[in-house]
């Protein structure tokens, strides 16, 4: 017998749990402005999530999926996007969306039950997809956008998408990786491996040792990174996007992290999660780790960190006000449910639109 194929999966980590460099750092890690920017983006998201969950508890927000503990994944990845790249996010993709110009109040509007939350106003996000709720559908949309880029011979453009580790069990995940391999598509997929698919732990999702190796059968590159280390995420995704933009094809990046919150506000993780596992995971949490690194680097002092927290809270409050203002003072008319169904509403549906308007006050 003769060995035909073999594979290896590499793991990338720059900052250890204590925020100390575990490896030779990439250049950007010395850039104070870049690193402080990443920290502040992660912090903004942490506050936005906390505020959204609090709003849900008092009935001013609907079901909301927080990203607590996973901020480094989306913040690090989206910091590599250019204005020509396209983002195809999933429902826990708030970090990536904010990183590509979506406004916090748009995120709040969407989860507050208002369709206008997907009508992104920032030109940066004008070609970005709205979030995918049906799991894994986004993978094929990303492959489709990447196909268009490839077929038109566009240079310097790539697609970034994200999926949960549970989502990698869906057929569409494999279909997308497969075509990305055969067609050498300019796309990067980040797996947010937060260890849980609602109540189902990662070990019940796959018998493979890593999610990164799911790339192997598709003939594309796969690697695993410490998803709580924003430097590792940014480094890996940045290189993968560059490769994609330059005709080098697709990459699958598994970011290992932990969901330090309920699945959504509709969930109660205490039903299935071991409190000890959660406590262990808290120690590896990404924000505190980065703060330690920044302090050691001399990029910030404790007082500045406090100021950043105050500023993040103020920014979130400003966005919450915009959200309230839109809901209270500029609600959608009921007819909006018909106005975006087709380029022009078919004659047959006009009477129904009229009825909705007539009954508007109900």
């Amino acid at each position, binding site marked *: 017998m003769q060995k035909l194929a073999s594979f290896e999966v590499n793991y990338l980590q720059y900052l250890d749990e204590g925020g100390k460099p575990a490896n030779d750092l990439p250049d950007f890690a010395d850039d104070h402005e870049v690193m402080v920017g990443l920290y502040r983006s992660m912090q903004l998201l942490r506050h936005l999530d906390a505020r959204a969950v609090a709003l849900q508890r008092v009935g001013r927000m609907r079901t909301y999926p927080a990203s607590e503990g996973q901020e480094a994944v989306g913040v690090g990845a989206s910091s590599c996007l250019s204005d020509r790249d396209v983002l195809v996010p999933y429902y826990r993709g708030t970090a990536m969306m904010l990183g590509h110009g979506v406004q916090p109040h748009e995120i709040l509007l969407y989860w507050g039950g*208002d369709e206008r939350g997907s009508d992104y106003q920032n030109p940066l996000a004008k070609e970005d997809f709205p979030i995918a709720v*049906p799991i894994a559908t986004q993978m094929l949309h990303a492959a489709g956008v990447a196909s268009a880029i490839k077929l038109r011979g566009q240079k310097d453009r790539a697609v970034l998408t994200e999926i949960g580790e*549970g989502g990698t069990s869906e*057929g569409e995940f494999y279909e997308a990786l497969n075509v990305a391999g055969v067609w050498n598509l300019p796309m990067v997929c980040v797996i947010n491996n937060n260890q849980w698919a*609602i109540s189902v732990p990662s070990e019940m999702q796959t018998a493979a040792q890593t999610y990164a190796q799911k790339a192997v059968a598709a003939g594309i590159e796969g690697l695993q990174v410490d998803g709580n280390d924003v430097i590792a995420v940014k480094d890996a995704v940045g290189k993968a996007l560059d490769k994609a933009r330059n005709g080098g094809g697709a990459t699958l990046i598994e970011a290992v992290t932990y969901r330090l919150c309920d699945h959504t506000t509709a969930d109660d993780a205490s039903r299935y999660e071991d409190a000890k596992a959660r406590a262990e995971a808290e120690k590896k949490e990404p924000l505190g780790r980065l703060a330690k690194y920044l302090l050691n680097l001399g990029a910030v002092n404790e007082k500045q960190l406090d100021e950043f927290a105050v500023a993040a809270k103020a920014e979130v409050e400003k966005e919450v006000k915009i959200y309230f203002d839109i809901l209270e003072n500029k609600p959608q008319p009921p007819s909006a*449910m018909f106005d975006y169904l087709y380029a022009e509403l078919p004659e047959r549906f006009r009477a129904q639109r009229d009825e909705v308007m007539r009954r508007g006050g109900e």
Partner: protein
Amino acid sequence: MPTLTLIEAVTLALDHEMGRDKEVVILGEDVGRNGGVFRATDGLQDKYGDQRVLDTPLAEAMIAGLSIGMATQGMKPVAEIQFMGFVFPALNQILGAAARMRNRTRGRLHLPMVVRMPYGGGIHAPEHHSESTEAIFAHTPGLRVVVPSNPSRAYGLLLAAIRDPDPVIFLEPKRIYRIVKHEIEDDGEAYPLDTCFVDRQGDDVTFVAWGAMMHETLLAAEMLAKEGVSAEVIDLATVAPYDVETIIESVEKTGRCVIVAEAVRTGGVASDIAAELAERCLLSLIAPVGRVTGYDTIMPYAKLEGRYLPSVDRIADEARKVMAFS
């Protein structure tokens, strides 16, 4: 006798049948340890073990396909799809394979399987969590589609669905999962899957509804009673293949019919009933058949969903319209 909500009645029926028949297995996303996101399978894994209540990887085509394979081996899988909006990856299996197996093999293989899913709107859930697409299944010969409208019916119809030798799509109206309670004796009595239920007798107009809309329809009937209009209310219950004879018998008596459905207007089960009435009791009708349905548009998100769902007022207005006609 325990007093149970609709969701608790679902759990009781599952428990009863698992205890009675060791071939019954439950599979789906989050159904084991977590007891289902709505708690339909709460406690069942503790009671029957993880070889009979299976937390699957996250893949709906897989859940449906596995159920088909298991069923050919004489097992009785009761699969859960977490929300009806996520059944689409499984349609290839359900419509393309499950519905056809008995026919393809001329009876050599058959599928005693159930696919349960919460459906319908009105709980302010996120996008894709509120649609009513029962017509897709009702349009597929070889499937039964069953929708309970209250706790007793959930218990009796789910028992019947599990015992039925053919695939049954069991749609649970999640808006009424917890709004009413019934006293239910755990006697293992199944309800028939080939009849509808007359829940209110009346002489002037026949309402036909199913699932959560039964709630608004009964309220509308009460409202009309105060106006001197006597409405008969029929719970369709088994949406496909449905019992048209009971409906026709009622309409021959009342001469008027209003069909109420949460699903979109075009191509729905309500349209099919209207067509049957047009074909079979034209001469008994003294007014055009009315339909009150969801609008022909995408189910709006939480802020506008209340404007979308058929309301008691809309239902009563339609009845007033047919009453005014003659």
